[in-house]
């Protein structure tokens, strides 16, 4: 039996469905480790709230593991699509109804699996401030309107009086420059 880290998503799903096997719990943990960050990102993208995204992770992963345990996922190799489908449905529900979080949480998973793992991407905010200061004014305006004010390219284009295509070009260039600055070994002056 290979280590769970080396298993494909489908193999993990099969191991969970098999239950009884000693490896099932490890497979559940690995499946959670793999997919929880992806569901969180989906939640952030569609719900625009860290709290709502964390709620979504808990609900989606609880339901996924429950369905896998019950053998209700027909094609284990398509578990990623299954998780996405659940995410879509639950994100819509989250916008409409209150959650039954506590009930589901208590029913299925140990506490250690309830906390959503933080993203791997830790950021030096002080450095980012310096990098932001090095951008051209228009680049800085575009990234702040996009990532802070949450304006679409079309909205930014009206605000800055440039075409939407130009906004995308500026935004892409600005992000590249920020990435380069953040990873530069020379540091930020």
């Amino acid at each position, binding site marked *: 039996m290979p280590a769970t880290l080396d298993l494909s*998503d489908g193999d993990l799903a099969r191991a969970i469905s098999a239950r009884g096997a000693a490896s099932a719990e490890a497979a559940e943990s690995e499946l959670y480790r*793999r*997919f929880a*960050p*992806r569901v969180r*990102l*989906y939640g*952030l*993208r569609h719900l625009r709230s860290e709290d709502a995204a964390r709620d979504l992770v808990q609900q989606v992963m609880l339901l996924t593991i429950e369905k896998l345990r019950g053998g209700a996922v027909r094609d284990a190799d398509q578990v*990623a*699509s299954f*998780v*996405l489908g659940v*995410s879509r449905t639950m994100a819509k529900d989250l916008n409409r109804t209150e959650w039954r979080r506590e009930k589901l949480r208590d029913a299925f998973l140990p506490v250690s699996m309830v906390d959503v793992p933080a*993203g*791997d*991407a*830790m*950021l030096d*905010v002080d450095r*980012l*401030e310096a990098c*932001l*200061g090095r951008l*051209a*004014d*228009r680049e*800085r*305006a575009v*990234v*702040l*309107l*996009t*990532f*802070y*004010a*949450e*304006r*679409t*390219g*079309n909205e930014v284009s009206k*605000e*800055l*009086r*440039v075409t939407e295509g130009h906004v*995308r070009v500026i*935004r*892409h260039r600005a*992000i*590249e420059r*920020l*990435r380069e600055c*953040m990873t530069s070994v020379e540091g930020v002056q």
Partner: protein
Amino acid sequence: MSGCLAPIPDETLLDYWARDLPDGDEMHRVEEHLFACGDCSARLEHLAALGTGLAVLAREGRVSGMVSRTLINKLQRDGVRVRMYSLSPGETVPCAVFPGDDLIVACLRADFSGVETVTLSVTGPGGSALARYDDVPVLQASGEVFWVNPAARIQQMPTMRLELSLASADASRTEIGTYVLEHSASTPRA
């Protein structure tokens, strides 16, 4: 888990995160890929972290340069304590940083008729150049542009006279307005 054979292009990933990818087939394809691919979801994670970092900086008032009214309104709604000094052309206004300030804003008013972008030049004592912002878009209807600085930075400045000059950013470099901020240094607490 590594070595994605068909990575999502950076531009597409950025459009997706910025909600500029229409809700349709392409977005669904991107999401299917993101859920199945550890590499691309990790790339999105880094992009998201960058976006979160930018939002954190803004909410802490740690932004500088020329910004729009939209951004200032959003900052104020989010609880950033903004102190704004409004100046008309030719005006001299005393300014200072007070305890609790997060962001200092100079609102420069002018008649921007026929002007699409401007250049702001800031000079200090003896005409020393302190800052210059080129190609700043203006909304003619609003008749104002905003220069922002973190209060923590301004607090470090000694008492000085700042001269601000707005000119059109086109080849004519037509002067639009000059303004003076008489900055008083913060008094150290006893």
